[in-house]
């Protein structure tokens, strides 16, 4: 799933909500994203932290499936920061 904005643009984002799913096994990060996206308003951004490298592709596919915008991924220290904009 390609990112829709640049890394520098991702760096500038302040997410409306951050979900810490580090240490959670599949499908945990996806379920946390599902819960988290419901807590942000349409148009705002959810940031998911995951230590599972498969999560970014999972969240990308999920975003496309349910109609949200997968923005991209930034590296953290031992985890990844995944950004999704709520679209509906």
């Amino acid at each position, binding site marked *: 799933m390609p990112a829709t904005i640049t890394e520098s643009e991702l760096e500038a984002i302040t997410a409306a909500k951050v979900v810490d799913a580090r240490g*959670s096994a599949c499908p*945990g990060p996806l*379920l946390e994203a599902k819960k988290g996206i419901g807590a942000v308003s349409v148009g705002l951004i959810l940031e998911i932290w995951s230590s599972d490298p498969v999560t970014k592709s999972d969240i990308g596919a999920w975003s496309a499936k*349910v109609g949200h915008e997968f923005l991209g991924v930034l590296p953290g220290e031992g985890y990844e920061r995944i950004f999704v904009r709520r679209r509906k």
Partner: protein
Amino acid sequence: MADTEKLVFMVLHGPEHPEHATIPFVMGCAALASDVEVVLGFQADGVELVRRGGVDGVEAPSFPPLAKLMNDFRELGGKLLVCGPCIKSRGIAPDDLIEGAEIVAAGRFIAEITSATNSLVY
């Protein structure tokens, strides 16, 4: 084709096969999170999973505990259908089943499967 997508996962393995028992719940939870209706259908040894306490202590390597996935699945609105003859042959009484598990026979399974977008067997 119905407006809402629906998947049916048939679960044929019990606690003695943790990975086979766990993966349909993983798939089911992911589908529910993706706004897809999900039915888990339990037959053969799979019915042991919907006996009260049946998932306690079941954990496949690299997956969450099955008890957590069962809770997530039910919270997300997934349906649990259980083969009546399969519980009878194992001495499982209806009162032994977890809340929300619905006892059905072959005709209901066929109706669910033929009305689904797709069905998978585990």
